[in-house]
């Protein structure tokens, strides 16, 4: 196999998340040492969610460079992304605090892959989702340059699956639509965000039921049940 040298685009081999310096107000216990989870290590139905927006007059490289440099700026105000100190580079870990659901969430993502026109995150145990989130930009003959977020995810456990059905899926859509809207505004485009959702596998992976032991909302559930 005569391959291009893309070693530098991929994260070095690792099975667990290792974080270095972290913000003082961040609970690293929900990230440090957690194993990475691909979609087949999750529990819920497998979804492919694609969000895209046209950003004419910008190249894919310009869009991705801006996205990486200003990543947290485009998130909604109820969530915060702590970018790695060295930037969004393969093997680095980004930290996330979110207040979207009934329980505040602290988690993280591994930068799995990064090149000039795309980058991808992979999630760890305890994250609401198991899977990949890929950010990319590409030329489209009709619309010009497109910026896109694509998720290939299952919820990680039955509790997150229930939450996803109740409110999480809509919140997830709003979050990524907001992100793309903000990115497009920042780069001077007023084009609408297009959302496409495909259920890739309707089966739930019951053998991964025990992922629930990593769910950060469990203490909250126990407290609610006992009160």
């Amino acid at each position: 196999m005569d391959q291009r040298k893309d070693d530098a685009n991929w994260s070095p081999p690792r099975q667990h998340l290792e974080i270095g310096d972290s913000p003082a107000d961040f609970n690293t216990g929900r990230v440090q040492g957690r194993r990475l989870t691909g979609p087949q290590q999750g529990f819920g139905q497998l979804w492919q969610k694609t969000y895209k927006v046209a950003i004419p007059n910008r190249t894919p490289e310009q869009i991705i460079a801006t996205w990486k440099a200003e990543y947290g700026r485009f998130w909604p105000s109820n969530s915060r992304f702590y970018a790695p100190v060295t930037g969004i580079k393969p093997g680095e870990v980004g930290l996330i605090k979110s207040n979207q659901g009934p329980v505040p969430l602290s988690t993280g993502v591994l930068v799995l892959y990064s090149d000039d026109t795309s980058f991808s995150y992979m999630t760890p145990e305890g994250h609401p989702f198991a899977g990949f989130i890929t950010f990319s930009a590409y030329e489209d003959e009709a619309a010009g340059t497109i910026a896109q977020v694509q998720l290939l995810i299952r919820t990680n456990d039955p509790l997150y699956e229930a939450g996803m059905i109740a409110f999480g899926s809509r919140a997830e859509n709003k979050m990524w639509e907001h992100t793309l809207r903000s990115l497009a505004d920042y780069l001077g485009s007023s084009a609408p965000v297009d959302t496409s959702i495909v259920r890739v596998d309707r089966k739930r992976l019951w053998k991964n039921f025990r992922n629930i032991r990593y769910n950060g909302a469990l203490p909250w559930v126990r407290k609610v049940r006992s009160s």
Partner: protein
Amino acid sequence: MPGTPFSATVRHEDGGSVIDLVGDIDRNAGDGLTAAYQEATLGRDQGSPVVLSFRDVDYINSTGIAVIVTLLAKARADGRSLRAWGLSPHYQEIFQITRLADFMTLFETEPQALAVS
């Protein structure tokens, strides 16, 4: 660097169906790979595995990994074994990182991939 266009062709062998993958596996590979899987499994019983040959694959990026995961989920939903051979050490490592290798056995040669029952 310009990429090599993706193509996928199907062969039916004694031990199962083989999909010969050629070129770059990226966002553009999804439709071709899905069509090849459908051709590979059409009329074949569930116990017949599908073997992906990566021998002539030049490049896989993260959107390509997502395409392969989607195919793996489809195969598992069908109750069918999906196997791989011909991956370079570099991409074997990527399959380990992304945990694709937890669910798709990697083989050194095509006869090995077809021989396992």
